[in-house]
């Protein structure tokens, strides 16, 4: 059975790219214990693979009870935001080689939201804040019979904030949000910004009024955690500052 093809495979595996990586995962299962604890998994993986692949390897080959969210696995759906080595990232966009794999890689659920099991959190407060800023087109008058046209410059104005995938990496990296969940959080403000600065939208005044509130943009401390955390590279803090500026220039 030693065909030339198999020989080639064996030769390749001799120069294996695989390295041994320790994943230190914060496990929580309310059906077993009321306390979370760190658990180490040793796996052999190509460092060019992603953290999500490592998690899959653990779940499929070592411990099927490991629980995490992922849907598209390609950085679009925003399901697998987690705290990797103390920083919020998407597991599907983080390569093993980029996060010093010689040391244990810590993986835990994003902070500021209720942990339901392992890496799964209750996203409801996050989405409630999203709903509260009315993230949909608001217009007055009759519906036009064709598309609502917009110039390229008008589109460019809010281009950055259209990239949001609602992964909650920014909101759950915000120290104000950790301490007080009533704060809207960066993600909701980014999605309000997307419509406030849209030339086709006429509900900007309502949204600004909502964000002018006690729990709105004025609670931002510009720590830039959100900008650092955003896997889409949105300049989140800048968007929040633009909403602040719009609020001030509206009044004076």
């Amino acid at each position: 059975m030693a065909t030339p093809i198999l020989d080639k495979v064996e030769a390749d595996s001799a120069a294996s790219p695989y390295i041994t990586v320790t994943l230190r995962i914060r496990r929580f299962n309310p059906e077993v214990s009321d306390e979370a604890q760190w658990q180490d998994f040793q796996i052999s993986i190509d460092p060019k693979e992603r953290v999500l692949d490592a998690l899959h390897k653990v779940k499929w080959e070592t411990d099927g009870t490991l629980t995490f969210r992922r849907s598209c696995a390609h950085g679009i759906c925003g399901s697998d935001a987690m705290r990797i080595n103390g920083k919020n990232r998407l597991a599907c966009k983080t390569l093993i080689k980029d996060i010093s794999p010689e040391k244990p890689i810590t993986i835990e659920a994003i902070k500021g939201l209720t942990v339901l099991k392992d890496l799964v959190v209750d996203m409801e407060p996050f989405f409630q804040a999203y709903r509260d800023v009315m993230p949909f087109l608001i217009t007055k008058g009759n519906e036009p019979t064709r598309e609502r046209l917009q110039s390229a410059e008008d589109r460019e104005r809010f281009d950055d904030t259209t990239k949001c995938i609602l992964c909650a990496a920014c909101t759950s990296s915000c120290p104000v949000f950790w301490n007080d969940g009533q704060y809207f959080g960066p993600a909701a403000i980014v999605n309000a910004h997307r419509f406030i600065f849209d030339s086709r939208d006429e509900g900007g005044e309502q949204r600004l009024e909502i964000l002018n509130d006690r729990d709105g943009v004025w609670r931002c401390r510009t720590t830039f955690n959100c900008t650092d955390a955003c896997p889409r590279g949105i300049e989140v803090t800048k968007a929040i500052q633009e909403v602040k500026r719009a609020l001030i220039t509206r009044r004076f």
Partner: protein
Amino acid sequence: MSTESSAAIGSVEGVSLYDVDHPAPVIEPPRKRTGKTPKGSRTNFEMYAWLFMRLSGIVLVVLVLGHLLIQLVLDGGVSKIGFAFVAGRWASPFWQVWDLAMLWLAMLHGANGLRTVINDYAERDNTRFWLKMLLYTATVFTVLLGTLVIFTFDPNIR
């Protein structure tokens, strides 16, 4: 609440406190947002507070640095400060206004800063309320007392 329920489960289950039918309580984040979160107060107070912090900060840099320079560095430094020095300075309306502005701006700036700290860190509404009441009382007392002293200062007092 959590200790009570876990004790109740423990007596039923024996060894393991938690199982599928009796999951452990999860840790809720402080003051999480729900559908019942009250809608905005529709005032501009937070905006004015935010603006005040920026503007008073700029003015305070000038006022406080000038104050420190005069008190501690120029013309003999700290050793010259005495009752006569203060009396001499407060004889001029310019220094009265300077000190008054510094007192008001610094106290309100600091009080507003502490108010945001309390808003950020106090989890229970009761704690929040009483800490703020303490803060406001202290602020009003200090500002009024300082203003009273500046306006009624009598250099001939014995």
